[in-house]
């Protein structure tokens, strides 16, 4: 088990900077996720940890050992590839035993270890199958077993679930987590799927265009995004540009030109991200925080509008409220039966609770 320490990592491919000035410390036994859209540098970073790329600038350390230019075969990391990279000419046993044979373990030890790990991933009966005869989910487990059996210091997972269908993906999520806890192994997981990231991770690093935007626990990332990119990339949100107006008691007041109204926000770290004076500011409010009602509501942060459309997704209902031509607010409620659905065209009131609105600056480097 190891900590992973990335300091000032920059990676350039020709003129393209794939990763820029990255500083990260991943703790022992942690399940750490790199989250971001494609081309954001998350896989590049993972490959620098595995040793397939060497950083242009910066250092990679496992515990206190400098690994920056150590070749991949000497790093003792276990990697699961997006396409699994199972050796097509070998059986399940041979695939898993590969890393053990390289380590020159005795035959009976190899056999014992392979059988043990296959039991852990629940594939004992497939030990002599050709890998091509396995289903996607089973191949995935073999790939995991192959990476785990060498008792790596760090487990690296590169979008391992992206080739599976939705139901299998759910199942494998729990499976991976279970194995990670069982082996208590430092794990780095790369994904572009926010649900995967939120449900599995101890901590998440959100990447965009080669820069790490925010590092935090899933709840921090979701509830207290540091900028508009993070707020929009993780979950759904209503975002509107605002300008700072004034302080009033426990609240700050921001002005929205689109709504042509003031927005009140609690003056706390949970509601106001840190920003510089010259930053473009946004207010962000999650759809599930917005309250919509046909009955008139009194007080601050209430806006009247008409229902533009209602989307039924099964477990929840999305209501789009048109305030004016510049602003439409989305509200999400759990499904409570047909009687609670609003009708398109109805006059309604939307309330954005001042404890749920968050003020965030525009992300840097975002083009």
């Amino acid at each position, binding site marked *: 088990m190891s900590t992973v320490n990335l300091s000032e990592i920059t990676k350039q491919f020709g003129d393209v900077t794939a990763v820029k000035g990255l500083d990260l410390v991943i703790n022992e036994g942690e399940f750490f996720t790199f989250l971001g859209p494609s081309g954001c540098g998350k896989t590049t970073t993972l490959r620098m940890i595995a040793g397939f790329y060497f950083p242009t600038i910066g250092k990679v350390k496992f515990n206190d050992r400098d690994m920056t230019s150590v*070749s991949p075969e000497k790093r003792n990391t276990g990697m699961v590839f997006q*396409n699994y990279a199972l050796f097509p*000419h070998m059986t399940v046993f041979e695939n898993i035993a590969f890393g053990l044979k390289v380590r020159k373990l005795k035959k009976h030890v190899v056999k014992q270890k392979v059988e043990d790990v296959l039991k852990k991933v629940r594939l004992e009966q497939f030990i002599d199958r050709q890998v091509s005869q396995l289903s996607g989910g089973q191949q995935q487990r073999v790939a995991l077993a192959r990476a785990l059996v060498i008792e790596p210091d760090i487990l690296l997972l590169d979008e391992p679930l992206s080739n599976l269908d939705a139901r299998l993906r759910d199942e494998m999520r729990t499976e991976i987590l279970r194995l990670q806890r069982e082996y208590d192994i430092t794990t780095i997981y790369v994904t572009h799927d926010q649900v995967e990231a939120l449900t599995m991770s101890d901590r998440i690093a959100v990447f965009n265009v080669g820069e790490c935007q925010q590092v935090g626990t899933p709840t921090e990332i979701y509830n207290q995004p540091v900028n508009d990119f993070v707020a929009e990339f993780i979950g759904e949100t209503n975002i509107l540009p605002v300008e700072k107006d004034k302080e009033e008691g426990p609240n700050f007041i921001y002005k929205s030109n689109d709504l042509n109204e003031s927005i009140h926000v609690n003056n706390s770290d949970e509601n106001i991200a840190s920003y510089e004076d010259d930053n473009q500011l946004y207010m962000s409010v999650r759809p599930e925080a917005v309250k919509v009602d046909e009955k008139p509501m009194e007080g601050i942060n209430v806006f009247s509008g008409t229902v533009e459309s209602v989307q039924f997704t099964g477990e929840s209902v999305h209501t789009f409220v048109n305030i004016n031509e510049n602003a439409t607010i989305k509200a999400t409620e759990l499904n409570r039966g047909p009687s609670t659905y609003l009708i398109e065209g109805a006059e309604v009131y939307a309330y954005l609770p001042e404890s749920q609105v968050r003020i965030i600056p525009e992300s840097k480097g975002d083009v």
Partner: protein
Amino acid sequence: MLNAEKRKTIYLLNPVVLILIGYVLYPSISTLIESFKQNGAFSIGNYTDFFGPKAAANLEALWHSVYISILSVLLSALIGVPLAYIFNRYDFPGRQFFSNIAIMPIVLPSLVGVMAFMFLYGEVGLVPNAIKDLLNLSKVPFQIGGVSGILIVHAYTMYPYFYMTASSALNNIDPSLEEAAYNLGSSKFKVFWRVTFPLLTPGLVAASLLVFMVSMASFSAPFLLAGGYRVLSLQIYFSKMNGDLEMAATQSVILSMVSIGFLLFMRWYQSRKDYRMASKGIGAHRSEVNNPVLKVVMVTLGIITMIILLLPHATLLILSLVPEGAWTWQTYPQAFSFENFRLLFEDPNIWDPVRNSLIMTTLACIGVFTFGMITSYALVKRSFIGKNLLDILVMIPWALPATVVGMNMILAFNKPSVFSFGEVLVGTFWILPLAYFIRFIPLVVRSTNAVLEQMDDSLEEAAQNLGAKWFYTFRRIVVPIILPGVLSGTLLAFVQAVGEFPTSVLLYTLDNRPISIEIMNQLRMFNIGQAAAFGMIQVGLIAIVMFISYRFFGVKSENTL
């Protein structure tokens, strides 16, 4: 700082570059230099002679070569494409069997094929004479020879290029494309003309270029059939035999220019964006022939095609059973026996060529197997400066006509050089296996490239991640995966090396004469039976190797073209 990856690349490239420079580039340059020499002094005299009035024969030969090549392309396409369409789009009894027979010309080495054609359709041919006797004609109704003979042999041996490219293209067309056209209201003819045919064109153009190059280089057919008709590949041989090495070099350079020009054009054409099928998992879609009349027509057509295709093989077999002296002035052979095959094991003079061929071919195959695999790996999986140049260098022996490769070898190694460790190689045993090796490198590289390009980089990375060093990964992961590709290239090299004639005829000595040379000698002595028996041995060797590689390594001969 050189990192580990770059160091590995350099280690890999060193032998590759060294061998390519020493045995491909250096010989070609030797020929180029020789072509600018007249009586040992620098001069462009050879070229003015070539194009000038002094030796009109040369220019005439060049035009003849081009003329024959164009006609060969047309003829091969006319046979290969319709045959491919019928065998791949219609289902009728025996379809699979007929389509397997369709590639039989490949197993017939060129010299042996030409010989079989001579005794089938030539002046003393069995077919024209049989017709003459059956119909009581006063002389044979037809005979092949000269241009017509060359063309017919070319059509027979080269139509598989069209047949196979058209077949694979047809099988790769997504049926829904044609169905979409029908759905939009197109007629059957229009669908073929506007949808199917355009999708076949990239393959057909490639096949045309290939056939053109092969017939420009063709040597055996003109050698036996041309009579007084001059073609360039043959002119090189005559110049060399007359001792005019400088003229032979000049002719080689000009023929090479044409061939390399075609190679570059082909590379350019294939690198253009072509419309590959995006869809996966295409099932075969053949219309079943239900009309009984049509069914009979189809099957008859299949049977006739089969007979025509197998007649040369059958002729060869029959001739090989004719003992010496049993077919001299008579219309038909007079006796049959296994005499010729028995002599093989009793007469060392007759066994020697077979042994020579086996040893030299095996040596060359071991060479191309190892070298082709490493070169292909370096080209596909490693990045370095000058990759494109190396790629062209590898492909040059494939584009160069066999006669030119022979000339290159003579001019490079008839004097000591570093690449021959200070020895003169011409006149020794080693010159022939070396020539085979050079000629057939591209076959292995090409077929290995195809497999390596399919292999995901992550497989190597996974092995490395699990702690395997580079060589272990190469041995345990890369080699097993690409082996079918390497083997099918090597198989093709074997098939071609066993029947090799044009390079051998320029380089052989009495002690290392291969089977093809002995066939030529026996033909000169009018010992047709023994010549045919040697031909049968070539065919037999090819068949055995093809069978073994199919049975034990799953390499299909169809994949090797």
